[in-house]
């Protein structure tokens, strides 16, 4: 054992006789290692600071390479996360819609305008620039006289008088300004048997109470509206010149770019204040049995052509078309991601090559410039190994400092750098629930959910960058250091 040690350590230093002595072995180890005292390291640091401007330029150049090296994986990770998020959203949206549709198999929805088709949740968007139309309640009596009708729920949907102008930014960086009503008034029947039997009122009350039978001149509003107006439960609000008390605040489940702000009140109040007495904008007709749905729907469509009728079947079709569309979006997102990844791999290889080349050239130049110094050191008794480790250490030191600079640049500029270097992945998809509309290709695309990929640096990534810095420093300075070690002292002394 001792023999083996002797042989091994002897390569690096003399005096290997008493190697059984532990401290001696350690001493020999220190001898091999450049850090035996910090002379080489200190020289490396001093040398680096000797040419401040050049050092700074090298650090900036390398720093940017390093920043790119960490920004790209950060961007990829963000894109992966966004895609995964999108998939999850998509799946849960489809599931919840499916459930909603299944629950309301007997529902025949009749609207006065064809802009929206809600699956039971009365939270559609108001039609931009489209006239709001109404039908008279007298039709209810006519429809109700049909066989197989269980219940008819009336809704009056009306835009607020106030409008807001909002700027919407797309993930692509485009922005546009739209003007829309401040909120939508949703007048609902507060008949206790209806509100307990069907999902008419919002389910998610976060403050105060829900509406109940007999409520008058009170309303509940969506949290986005209460936030916008700075109102709380118990506050008063003027709607169409009439004073209302806020009794509850409900959560809007939709996470789209443009959330609808809604107030719910009794349909009687809504009709009165908007001057629409006897008018409704939507009827939810519930059949006794699923088998009756088609007959009833056909009848309504035939007698009242101004009504847009949708049934369970229509909603299923719409869901499946939405599913197809979402799948396409997802596939696109995934294939973009795959392309992005392969591009990122190429870019990283290029950056690694560039970084090592920068280090290589800088170190080669340094070695050339300091040929005399190398000759002197050799004349003073420095071994090839001493010289080589000196220059390796310098290369690693440069890349370490550059690594710190890279992390600094990267932490500030990772989103920018990754969006600059990677194709832009804009992902649109579904949210957990909410109204959707069939015509996605229409002029005003409603984005139900969107994901923007913002690259952020994580700790493992930073550690990886440091590892890469050391590795590249060693890699790039290997050849120059070897060249330096192989310089013949006599020739080096002649070198000018």
């Amino acid at each position, binding site marked *: 054992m001792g023999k083996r040690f002797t042989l091994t350590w002897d390569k690096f230093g*003399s*005096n290997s006789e008493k190697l059984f002595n532990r401290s001696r072995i350690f001493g020999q180890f220190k001898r091999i290692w450049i850090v035996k*005292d910090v*002379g*080489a390291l200190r*020289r490396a640091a*001093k*040398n680096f600071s*000797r040419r401040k401007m050049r050092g700074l330029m090298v650090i900036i150049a390398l720093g940017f390479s390093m920043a790119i090296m960490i920004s790209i994986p950060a961007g990829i990770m963000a894109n992966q996360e966004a895609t995964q998020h999108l998939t999850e959203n998509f799946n849960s949206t489809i599931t919840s819609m499916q459930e909603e549709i299944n629950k309301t198999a007997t529902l025949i929805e009749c609207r006065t305008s064809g802009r929206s088709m809600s699956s039971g949740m009365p939270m559609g968007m108001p039609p931009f620039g489209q006239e709001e139309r109404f039908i008279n309640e007298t039709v209810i009596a006519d429809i109700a006289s049909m066989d197989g009708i269980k219940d008819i729920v009336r809704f009056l949907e009306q835009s607020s008088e106030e409008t807001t102008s909002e700027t919407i930014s797309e993930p692509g960086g485009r922005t546009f300004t739209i003007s829309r009503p401040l909120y939508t008034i949703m007048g609902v029947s507060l008949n206790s048997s209806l509100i307990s039997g069907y999902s008419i009122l919002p389910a998610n009350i976060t403050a105060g109470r829900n509406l109940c039978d007999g409520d008058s001149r009170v309303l509940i509003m969506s949290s986005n509206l209460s936030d916008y107006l700075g109102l709380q439960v118990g506050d008063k609000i003027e709607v169409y010149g009439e004073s209302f008390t806020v009794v509850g605040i409900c959560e809007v489940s939709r996470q789209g770019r443009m959330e609808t702000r809604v107030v719910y009140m009794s349909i009687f109040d809504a009709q009165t204040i908007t001057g629409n007495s006897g008018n409704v904008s939507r009827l939810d007709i519930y059949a006794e049995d699923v088998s009756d749905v088609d007959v009833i729907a056909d009848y309504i469509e035939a007698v009242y052509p101004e009504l847009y009728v949708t049934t369970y079947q229509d909603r299923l079709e719409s869901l499946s078309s939405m599913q197809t569309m979402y799948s396409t979006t997802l596939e696109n997102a995934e294939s973009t991601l795959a392309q992005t990844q392969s591009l990122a791999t190429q870019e990283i290889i290029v950056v690694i090559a560039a970084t090592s080349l920068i280090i290589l050239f800088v170190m080669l130049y340094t070695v050339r410039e300091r040929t*005399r*110094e190398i*000759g*002197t*050191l*050799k*004349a*003073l*008794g*420095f*071994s*090839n190994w*001493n010289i080589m480790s000196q220059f390796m250490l310098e290369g690693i030191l440069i890349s370490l400092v550059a690594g710190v600079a890279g992390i600094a640049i990267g932490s500030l500029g990772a989103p920018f750098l990754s969006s600059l270097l990677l194709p832009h992945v804009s992902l649109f998809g579904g949210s957990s629930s909410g109204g959707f509309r069939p015509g996605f290709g229409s002029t005003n695309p409603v984005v139900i959910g969107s994901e923007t990929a913002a690259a952020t640096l994580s700790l493992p990534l930073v550690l990886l960058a440091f590892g890469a810095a050391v590795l590249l420093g060693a890699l790039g300075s290997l050849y120059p250091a070897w060249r330096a070690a192989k310089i*013949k*002292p*006599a020739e080096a*002394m002649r070198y000018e």
Partner: protein
Amino acid sequence: MSELILKTEKLTKVYNMGKRKVTAISGLDLQISKGEFVAIMGPSGSGKTTLLNVLGCLDKPTGGTLLLDKVNVSELHEKKLCEIRRNKIGFVFQTFNLLPYLNAKENVELPMECTKRSKSEREKRARELLAMVGLSGREEHRPQKLSAGEQQRVAIARALANDPAIVLADEPTGNLDSQNKYEIVRLLGNLNITKGTTIVMVTHDSQIASQSERVLLLSDGKIMKEKQGLHLVKKKLMCPYCGSRIQLSDVRCPSCRKRL
């Protein structure tokens, strides 16, 4: 004759310049004893620097033997040569070759870095050596803050760091004005007298060469002529010009006022 520190027999160095062969040293026999102060003179191209490089193990001879402190150096390979350079030889260069980013003390510590001396020992020795060459108080100065003469003093202190058997000085006064030239050669002479350091100095300046104890005239890679220098007399603390007693610290002879 005292102990031989350096001995060459038929030492030859031939450079291959493409197809042409250039003989820099041809069959040179040389013996230098311990404690000698030898100057090698010769016109440019006579092989002075090549000889010094071969003697200093910076270059390998093509033929012949070189015994340094009784070790046949011509047979050793690079790893051992590096140890010899570190422990047996001190170099002084014409262009001083101090590392510009290290101060005087750190430059002197440099050759000790690869030895077993501890950091504090090294610092202590560097201070002592700098004091010996008359630079105490200037340990923290970087080379650019020192005059040419002072830089060469630092270089001499550095050459002495590992207690070498022999100091090889290649045109040590070549880059200095006449005032500094004499100071440096006097410093080398005094070190030779007080410390018994063996010194081999290459120069083309006959004034400087004559300050040594033995001057070898080199021509076409051979020693053509050998003569005595003034140093032998100085060693006895006598003025070589008038024979009166002198002190080592004297710059001029107290009686004849000639520069020593």
